[in-house]
């Protein structure tokens, strides 16, 4: 009888520098041949001590630092910090600022999902959708550049409102951009959804059960792809989202395909919100009168603000002792929990599935390392 072939597992480093890990995440994989036995994420390669910096900055200076906390959707970072500060100081934001904020947040969500679409397709092997996704994203980047001058880290939403009003040609160009993106979505899904190779690579791969997701604090599209109807815009409403009618896309079986398709549905919902917000954009001033950047001092106290970001719940726990600088700024990102749950359900599959799974989780490293 042939002696049992001694195969020992070997450890492969999907190291800090690896094309599939977006940024610098290192996964120590213990592998048996092609099958993955154990995943151990090693993080900290992008730990830039954002929380320590914010403790020594005034409230207006914190916002550009928090832009870099989650640089693919910096608008939501600005927004969640100003929401926390407004909850601390009980500030009422003018109508026009609220509408501008919703417009900017939804545009940023679409841009982030387009980047997700491109990078996921590239990780599973199709190079062309990456370029298509980024081509549409440039339309939105032009809109941001028109209002706040920067392509990626905007520093636009401030405590009490927004910093600058939108130029005249913003609304027509925004409508044109949404119409183009709405049409192009059919090209995107046409390119991939009927493709048998794509379906075989993503359908039924790496299923994330709902209770495991909730237990590990997973939120956002990944949670809704596992069948849990939980969207902070509906369940813990903030801003003026209750004025717009849009549904929350939910998909039942939590595999890679559902996570991918859910983000495409979310783009469609964001387009609906945007068109309603653009129609209802009122006139008026864009920032609360009393809030001056240099002298903003909220009363002592603490508040946790959380919003629905494209990668799940983004929250800031703000503690203030009444001085110009916050006492403590705890930033919570969606990718942190998604990376934490990866070793629980991501094992005993092939390395190609791990790459597909990791791509659909849409983990980016600044949210994890901060």
């Amino acid at each position, binding site marked *: 009888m042939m002696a049992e072939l001694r195969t020992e597992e070997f450890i492969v480093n999907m190291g800090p520098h690896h094309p599939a890990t977006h940024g610098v995440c290192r996964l120590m994989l213990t592998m048996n041949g092609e099958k993955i036995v154990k995943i151990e994420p090693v993080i900290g390669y992008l730990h830039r001590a954002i929380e320590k910096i914010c403790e020594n900055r005034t409230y207006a200076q914190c916002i550009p630092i928090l832009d870099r906390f989650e640089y693919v959707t910096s608008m939501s970072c600005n927004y969640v910090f100003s929401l926390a500060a407004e909850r601390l100081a009980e500030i009422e934001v003018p109508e026009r600022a609220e509408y501008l904020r919703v417009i900017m947040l939804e545009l940023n969500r679409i841009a982030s999902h387009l980047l997700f679409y491109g990078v996921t397709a590239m990780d599973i092997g199709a190079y062309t959708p990456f370029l298509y996704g980024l081509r549409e994203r440039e339309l939105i980047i032009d809109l941001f550049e028109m209002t706040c001058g920067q392509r990626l880290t905007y520093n636009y939403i401030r405590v009490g409102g927004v910093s600058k009003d939108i130029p005249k040609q913003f609304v027509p160009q925004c409508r044109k951009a949404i119409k183009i993106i709405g049409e192009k979505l059919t090209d995107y899904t046409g390119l991939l959804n009927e493709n048998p190779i794509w379906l075989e*690579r993503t359908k039924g791969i790496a299923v994330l059960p709902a209770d495991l997701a909730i237990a590990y604090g997973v939120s956002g599209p990944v949670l809704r792809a596992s069948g849990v109807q939980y969207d902070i815009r509906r369940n813990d409403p903030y801003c003026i989202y209750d004025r717009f009618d849009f549904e929350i896309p939910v998909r039942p079986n939590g595999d890679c395909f559902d996570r991918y398709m859910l983000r495409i549905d979310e783009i469609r919902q964001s387009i609906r919100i945007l068109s309603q917000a653009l129609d209802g954009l009122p006139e008026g001033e864009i920032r609360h009168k009393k809030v001056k950047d240099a002298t903003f001092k909220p009363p002592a106290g603490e508040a946790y603000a959380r919003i629905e970001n494209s990668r799940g719940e983004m929250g800031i726990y703000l503690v203030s002792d009444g001085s110009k600088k916050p006492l403590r700024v705890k930033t919570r990102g969606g990718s942190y929990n998604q990376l934490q749950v990866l070793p629980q359900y991501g094992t005993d599959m092939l390395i190609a599935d791990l790459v597909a799974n990791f791509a659909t989780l849409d983990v980016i490293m600044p949210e994890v390392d901060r």
Partner: protein
Amino acid sequence: MIGKPVLLAELHGLFQWLHEKLQATGLSQTWVDIITYATLGVIIFGVLSLIALYLIWWERKISAHVQQRFGPMRHGWHGWYQTVMDALKLLQKEDIRIVTRDKVVFFWAPVICFVAAFLAYVVMPFGDRLIVADLNIGILYIMAVTTFTIISLLMAGWGSNNKYALLGGMRSAAQVVSYEVPMVASILTIIIFVGSLSMMDIVKAQSGLIFNWYVFRIPFGPIAFLTYIVAATAECNRTPFDIPEAEQELVSGYNVEYSGMKFAMFFLAEFVNMFTVSAIAVTLFFGGWNGWDFIPSWIWFLGKTLIIVLLLMLFRWTYPRLRVDQLMEFAWKFLVPVTFANLIVAGIFKYFGWYW
């Protein structure tokens, strides 16, 4: 023969004249043979590496236009000498000696891959009487030679002393071996109709206009062609079967540790393989260099091959990548049965003489 050659455009007249000139110099026959085959070898090597360089540039332009961008533009009109510059740069790169016990394997892997890619052109019919040596086992020789790449990929994978390269090498060996079977089977269905293995006979059997090409020999031709093309993309490791050098999973697979000229050899060999595979497809299914006489035959051959190469390139920029086990399953559970069924039915038709 098919019409009279048009002056010098039919290159075989030129070679004939040169051969007589050489004969006349009175050297002994062996020397004459050595010189002719040496010059033919150099010509084939020169022409092919130029074609391969051109194909690399062409792939970058096609991928750019598929992705709505420009591709190389600055270096020459539409960047025509971009790949020449790439090759020159790769010449100057430092040749990194990595710490590995089997340096011989690491060193010889790219050489074998490079040489194997060119060996197949001994029997390739470029045009009317434009063939280096018309062996009577032509297609069998090509099949034997193109399997050398498996050995070189395995050697590269093993020699680089790197986990990713090892994974890439193993995967490529499994893939190329399991796609060899349907490829050979689909070629056999054509050989049944031709009756001889020699490439010139295959092309002669398809002389005349389009209706004589085997690709239109319903129902065997199209099936054989499709399975052949699928197996061929797997043979030269191109998407959707580019598992060995999957950028995202294996950080470019077996050629992780190669830099400079060694990497250039792998890179060039891959494109020469692609040209070989499409040249075989043209010879077997699209009637080699047959076509109207006013265009010289070797231009017909070149044109048809470039169309097939275009097809292979478009595959790369539209399809995602298959997983390793799906790839194996597709080969053994789908391709092999289809090609063998096609082979058997073609044999029966040929035996009873029913084919039309």
